[in-house]
Structure formats: C-alpha cells, structure tokens
C-alpha cells in the first residue's frame, strides 16, 4: 500500500470515527455554555481549548464532523442518484436529441456554482443545512452525469456490449446489467472527490451563514464565530480549519489511491 493512500485512508477513517463516536460520546457536552472558561488555551481538561462561550473545541469538532460528513454524503447521493441515470441515458441514446438535452442541461447547471445555487435557495426558503445539501447536491448532478456518460460511451463500442445487443437485450437493461457495473470504479473515485469538495463547500456555506444554523455544530460556523477572536485566541480559528484541511486532504489522497488501484490503465504508472 502506498504511503499517501495509507495516510488518506487513516485521515478519512479518523474523521468518520470522530463523527460516529460523537453520536454517543464527546469529551464535554457541546450544548453547555461555561462563560467562566471562555477562550482557554489547550490544556489537560480541554485538549484543544475552549471557544468564546467556554464550549470544548475538541467536542465541537467531533460533533461538527457529523454535520460536514452528513451534508457532503447526502449531496454525493443526490448527485449520483440523478446524475448516473442521466449519464447512462445520454450514453445509451448517444447522438440523439435526448443526449443533446441532457448534455446542454448539464452545461446549464455548471453555470450555477454551488454557492450561487445556495444563495438562490436561501433567498427563497431561508438558510439551513438541508438547503446546503440541496445546493451541493444539484451542483454534483452534472459532474456524475458527465463521468457516467464518458465511461459508458467507451463501453458501448466494446464487443461484449454488442453481444448483449445481439442477444436481444434492450438498451436500458444493458445499461443496468453491463454498463453500470463496469463504471462503478469511476463512480467510486468521483464520489470520493465530490465528497471532499462537499465538505469544503459545506464549510464555506456555513461560514457565510447559508448552511447549518445554531445550535447544530459546524466547522464553517465555528470559523465564522472565531473570526473576531483570532487575535485574542488564535486556537479558536486554527483547529476547525485544520480539521477541514486534514479531512479534505485525507479524502483526496484516498480518491487518488483508489483511482490508481481501480483504473487498470494507471496501474504501474507513477
């Protein structure tokens, strides 16, 4: 196992474990305010110090991991759920009007960065973690549609697909039974990349107030709250940022490693 892949796996698992453990245990209660303990630097009682309300930063990071991971994961689910069938359809009807409509629709969604989608949704429905999920999810749809279509198109020219056609299988059935299993590796790799981008996007949206709302703990909002206190207590801003960087870095390394392992063409290349 390559070192970078191992590091990616370890960092990703650490973030997942922190989120999972926070469901049953955190070092301190994240909802309890202790103003007397505010802005304490890291010590034995509070490993990563406390914030301006005296809340334990390590506990808040653990609970915040839950929000980040949940938002990014569901957004990947939305992107795959809608994008993969669209991509399969476009490839199965390659060159037809359906293909053209799907691809132009993709281009259109690409013109809306997830932040802009979030702004539109928030302007109408108000800010929430659900809106962040929808915004990032919509942004993911054309990404998965493109990857799926590209992978599927190259498969449609292969002999075993032709054989299935000759055997009388319909295009939908071939897409589900033969195309999809053969592009799963592409989708897993893209899923990891969109997952890490989703964590960055969620942090950005929460930071500007368009994502998770109090009291839901969120890394982005921790940074927003830390901004005015950065001179008094730099640790309040440093740790949530590090949590984001390490998680995203871990997922990216994991994605790169998975691509090297799953894509036979890349095997053996540096």
């Amino acid at each position, binding site marked *: 196992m390559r070192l970078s892949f191992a590091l990616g796996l370890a960092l990703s698992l650490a973030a997942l474990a922190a989120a999972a453990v926070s469901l049953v245990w955190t070092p301190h209660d994240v909802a309890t305010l202790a103003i007397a303990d505010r802005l304490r630097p890291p010590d034995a009682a509070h490993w990563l110090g406390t914030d301006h309300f005296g809340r334990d930063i390590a506990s808040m990071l653990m609970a915040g991991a839950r929000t980040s991971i949940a938002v990014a994961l569901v957004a990947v689910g939305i992107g795959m759920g809608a994008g993969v069938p669209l991509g399969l359809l476009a490839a199965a009807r390659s060159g037809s009007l359906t293909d053209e409509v799907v691809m*132009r629709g993709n281009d259109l969604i690409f013109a809306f960065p997830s*932040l802009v989608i979030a702004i539109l949704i*928030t302007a109408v429905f108000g800010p929430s973690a659900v809106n962040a999920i929808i915004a990032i999810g919509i942004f993911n749809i054309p990404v998965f549609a493109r990857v799926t279509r590209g992978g599927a198109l190259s498969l449609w020219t292969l002999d075993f697909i032709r054989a299935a056609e000759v055997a009388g299988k319909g295009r939908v059935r071939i897409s589900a039974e033969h195309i999809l299993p053969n592009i799963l590796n592409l989708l897993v790799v893209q899923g990891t990349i969109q997952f890490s981008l989703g964590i960055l996007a969620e942090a950005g949206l929460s930071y500007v107030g368009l994502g998770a709302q109090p009291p839901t703990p969120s890394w*982005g909002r921790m940074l927003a709250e*830390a901004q005015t206190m950065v001179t008094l207590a730099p640790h309040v801003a440093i740790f949530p940022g590090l949590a984001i960087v390490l998680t995203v870095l871990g997922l990216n390394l994991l994605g790169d490693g998975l691509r090297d392992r799953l894509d036979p063409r890349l095997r053996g290349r540096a």
Partner: protein
Amino acid sequence: MQRYLVGRLVSLALSLVVASLVIFAVIEIVPGDPASYMLGLNASEDTVAALRDRLGLNEAPPLRYLHWVAGMATGDFGQSYTYKVPVADLVGQRLAVSLPLALYALLLAVLIAFPAGLLAAGRRGRVADAAVMGATQVGVALPNFWFAMLLVLVFALHWQVFPAGGFPGWGEPLAGLRALTLPAIALALPQAAILARVLRSALIETLGQDYIRTARAKGLTAGQTILRHALRNAMVPVLTIIGMQFSFLLAGAIIIENVFYLPGLGRLIFQAITQRDLIVVESVVMILVFAVIVVTFLVDLAYAAIDPRLRTRA
C-alpha cells in the same frame, strides 16, 4: 470557422435565456411577496396592493419576465427594495471591488501554477515533482476563507505589512491594490494548486507523444521542447480549468469579502438576502451566471484558436 462561431453564439444565447428563466422562476414564482416583505407585517392591505402595483408585481409572470430581461439588456435592473436606488448603480459600485479581486486572484493563480506545473512535469518523479505535488495536495484541501484568516493573523496583525480589512476605494490605486492583495492570495492559492496539477498531467500526457520525441531527436533541449511544443498542446485542458476557475473565483470572492470586510458583491448579496431585497439577489445571481456562461463561451473560442481541429466540429 464561421459555422463554429455561429454554433457557439446560438448556444450562448440559449444558455442565457434558459438561465434567466430558471432564476426568474425561482425568485418570482416560489412563495413570498416582495411588497409584504418590504412593508413588514403591520402594513395594511391597501398599502401592500399599491406597492405591488408600483413594482409591476400584478402583471402576469411572462410579462414580468420580459420586462426584467428587456430592462437588463438596457442596463436597467430595477430599483432596490431596501436601498431605494437603481440596482445597476449598487451592482456597479460593488463590481468595482469584486471583479478586480477575481482578476487579481486569477493572475496570481496563473503566475504560481505555471512555474510549479512546468517544474513538476519537467522533473517528473524527482524531488521537485514530489514537493510540488505534496504542496498542491495541501493547497487543494485549503478552505480559502480559513487561509485568509491565517494571512490576516500573520501579515496584517503580526507583521502589519497589509491591511487586515476594508477597502479605501480606487481613488488611490496603490492603496486599493494593497487592500486586495491578501484576499487575492487567499483566493488564488487553492486555485493555483488545482491548475498546477492539471498543467502537470496535461504536459506529461503530451510529453509522451511521438512529435515530442522528434523534437528531442532534432536536438532541442528538454526545456525548449516543453516550452515550444508540449505547452501549446497541453493548453486545452489548462484553458478549460482557467475558464472554470474564473467563475469559482468570482463566487469565492463573495466568501472572501466577508473575511476582509470588502464592500463587494458578496456583502451586497448577503445583506439583500437578510433584507429580502429579492430584486438585488435576482440581479446579482444573474450577473454571476452571465459571467460564467460568457467565460465558457470565450474559452470555447480560445480552444478553436489553439486547436484548429476543433473548428470543424460544430
């Protein structure tokens, strides 16, 4: 070439029409009455009705859409519900901060990414390559607003070489540029990391081609081969990313403006959201999407200039 251009122009016009329809539909047809928001909960029905009439909200939606689009085409974006001034004026003032910031960041990203990408591709598999790739992995994972906070901590508060926030205006261009430097670096670095990676892999791909071997065989050095032959052919994917990055930078500027208290489009749009000033939200979103679509169009044209094979495809 003419057919290619016409095809791209038709696609540009269609994208703009559909995007404007989507934005209009989301803002205008989904629940909420701007007149009630503007007047508050205690306004009488007559007052709300009068304001609805004045804002043209009683017209049928298709007619309102046409008025909105026709207005934008002539530079009339309507009047802000809260500021009571033309939206075009508000947006114009704010764009004078956001647009230079995005362009400044794009310039920095290119200036960082090109040497890094060239170095990594030229020294593939060696220490310099590993160092560049390691640095770009961290760069890609950096949330730009957090990096901005660290920059403020070090360069504005500790060493005091750059201002921590605010914008003095373009009256003194150098002071304006200085105020935008830390925000531009914060925006540029993560994008530079992505660009350097794309440039490296595009270069490595072209360096494997036969014509590169020919160039080396006729006596060009590795550096000359990269600069004269490989770079031009690696530019198509690199240009795609630069085009996409411009839209990310413009959207990213909206977030970064929050860190540096810059009076740009970002501050405008977030205030507009809290104040339910939907006409401002609608216009700013349309401008952002317009920018993305037009940049994509320009990138398509640039492809054709770089790669003549693409001109024959519609």
